């Protein structure tokens, strides 16, 4: 093996591809060759680095210097100063602030522990970090029910939305006798403002696959699917590559590691429908139908894909599983709070200094996330509100900044946590306008199967459009709440049950704004 003086990890994700990272890497390599540094400096492609930065970002090890927003024109200076003379180029560095030192950012990680550290396209690098040890343990040392019990004991809640305990979900399916069972990964991430699953898959596809394998073993499924949206091209490429590597290494297929267990995993691509994030709609879509949600019960765990017992889990949920199996439930419980152990991945957008991605303990307050991880508000902007959880989320005001973010403390707001989207709004943004945009989204995405949602979304849209124009009254605002409450009680699935959250929170937290616009 060759030894290099420095390793340069360049983030190759959708964001940096947009900024032309491929050409950048080519130019960087050729400049290093020109300076005769190719044998000393190793340029590696990796996933998202765990800080956002803008444009093309890279980390230099072992000194752990982060650069952001690099251009091809910067390469000459970067190579000469940093790699030749050993003087980091301040002008291009991502400034550190508060707790935002890379070290801090890496300490508390489970899901993103490899993201930005290893080459996501190499199974050997994943194996080098202890990857697939949990899979081996699950296959050779543990009985399926032991795996289920371990996950139950860990207290892992589903990271897709509602936060249902994953181990309990698995136990329903594991206890059933059936000639065929399935596991499906829900990677149909469509909640506006949410892209944590994309970053998890781009940064460390093997970890998701390992979690999926362990789940399949636990419940006795021999066939698994990853249902992913068609727009996530880079994820699809990396997952396909990762699956091929697993087959080559004998980690997938027939009689895996001589355990007698068979498993195969296929990738299925969606066709663009928000409602397919609902697990029964997703199953309908996999079967080649319109993505209309099914009546529950029976729940998919009992009767799912092709009427067979099926576990549907979110990407982030499964990405936590290898850690739990390898290190035990107690190690997992060291993170987060008692009722909600573990970590949570958030994407922070909007008017903060460093929009980005972070993985923090469950129960971390929004204030900590904004101040310590996102560098506070962007200079010259004041905090007004945050839309937490995307369109199916809530609009919260300053008084919620110190509420612990976990499924237990957020109570009625808990359902919004799964998506991990935090959109920070400054004092100039209009809450009415944001709400209009959210309701327009629901109107478009309602599948139309049940009338409370189909008609309700349209009525809400008519009312909010009228209010936004300045033609509405406070009675119209009250009417919106009544309609959304009715939808909550009568809609077939979570889509129609969601608009109430944004509407009620917006009206409760920013009533003055609604009064002002209706008094015009």
């Amino acid at each position, binding site marked *: 093996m060759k030894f290099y003086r420095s390793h340069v990890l360049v983030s190759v994700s959708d964001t940096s591809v947009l900024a032309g990272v491929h050409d950048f890497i080519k130019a960087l390599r050729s400049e290093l060759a020109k300076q005769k540094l190719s044998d000393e400096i190793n340029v590696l492609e990796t996933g998202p680095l765990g800080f956002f930065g803008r444009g093309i970002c890279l980390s230099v090890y072992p000194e752990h210097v982060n650069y952001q927003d690099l251009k091809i024109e910067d390469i000459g200076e970067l190579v000469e100063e940093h790699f030749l003379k050993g003087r980091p180029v301040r002008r291009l560095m991502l400034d550190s602030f508060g707790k935002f030192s890379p070290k801090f950012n890496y300490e508390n990680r489970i899901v993103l522990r490899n993201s930005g550290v290893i080459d996501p396209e190499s199974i050997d690098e994943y194996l080098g970090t202890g990857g697939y040890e949990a899979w081996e343990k699950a296959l050779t040392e543990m009985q399926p029910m032991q795996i289920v019990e371990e996950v139950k004991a860990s207290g892992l809640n589903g990271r897709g939305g509602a936060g249902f305990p994953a181990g309990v979900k698995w136990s329903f399916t594991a206890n059933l006798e059936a000639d065929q069972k399935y596991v499906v990964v829900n990677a149909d991430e469509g909640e506006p403002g949410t892209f944590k699953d994309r970053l998890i898959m781009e940064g460390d596809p093997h970890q998701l696959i390992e979690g999926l394998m362990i789940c399949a073993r636990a419940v006795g499924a021999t066939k698994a699917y990853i249902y992913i949206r068609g727009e996530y091209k880079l994820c699809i490429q990396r997952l396909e590559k990762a699956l091929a590597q697993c087959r080559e290494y004998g980690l997938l297929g027939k009689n895996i590691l001589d355990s007698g267990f068979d498993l195969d995993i296929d990738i299925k691509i969606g066709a663009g429908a928000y409602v397919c994030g609902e697990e029964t709609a997703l199953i309908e879509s996999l079967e080649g139908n319109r993505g209309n949600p099914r009546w529950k019960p029976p729940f998919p765990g009992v009767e799912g894909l092709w009427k067979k017992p099926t576990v549907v889990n979110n990407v982030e949920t499964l990405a936590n599983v290898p850690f739990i199996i390898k290190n035990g439930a107690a190690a997992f419980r060291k993170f987060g709070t008692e009722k909600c152990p573990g970590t949570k991945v958030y994407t922070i957008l909007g008017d903060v200094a460093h929009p980005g991605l972070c993985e923090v303990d469950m129960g971390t307050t929004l204030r900590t996330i904004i101040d310590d991880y996102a560098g506070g508000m962007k200079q010259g902007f004041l905090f007004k509100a945050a839309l937490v959880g995307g369109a199916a989320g809530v609009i919260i005001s300053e008084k919620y900044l110190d509420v612990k973010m976990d499924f237990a403390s957020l109570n009625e707001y808990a359902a919004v946590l799964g998506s991990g989207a935090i959109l920070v709004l400054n004092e100039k943004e209009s809450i009415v306008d944001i709400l209009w945009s959210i309701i327009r*989204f629901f109107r478009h995405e309602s599948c139309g199967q049940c009338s409370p949602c189909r008609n309700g979304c349209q009525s809400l849209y008519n009312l909010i459009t009228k209010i936004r124009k300045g033609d509405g009254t406070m009675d119209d605002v009250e009417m919106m709440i009544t309609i959304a409450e009715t939808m909550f009680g009568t809609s077939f699935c979570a889509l129609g049950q969601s608009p109430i959250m944004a509407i009620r929170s917006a009206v409760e937290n920013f009533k003055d704004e609604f009064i002002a616009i209706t008094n015009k």
Partner: protein
Amino acid sequence: MYKEIFSKYEPTKDNLIYILHEIQDKHPQHYISEDAVDKVAEYLKVPANHIYGVLTFYTMYSTTPRGKNIIRLCESPPCYIKGTVNILRKLKALLDVEIGETTKDGHFTLELCACLGVCGNAPVMMINEDVYGDLTEEKVEDIIEKYRRAK
């Protein structure tokens, strides 16, 4: 064309979504014609109305002819607050079309879409398979020009 596509997929209903994707991608006008629906119905042995139902449910399919390049501008809240409205106005003016329409030369179709999951770079649009982020009116002009020149 159909024969070649069908040969890749077993005639089972769960392959419908993939077959439709491929037919649409291969068609020069990026849509699924009535004729295609009939052919697929025959191959999969499912009623044509089921296929039509699927086709009109998912936003990625079109039942009307479209242009060579399909522009999909995200209108979800994170892009909306970053100025989708201005970008849309610019695109409409540049292309002289309304939402859902195709330019006279058949070169572009303008569509709106929901979140593309690249919100860190809002506002965002996709042209065919490629994503463009951090859009400004000037940037949009350059991008459209690039596609025009690639005629």
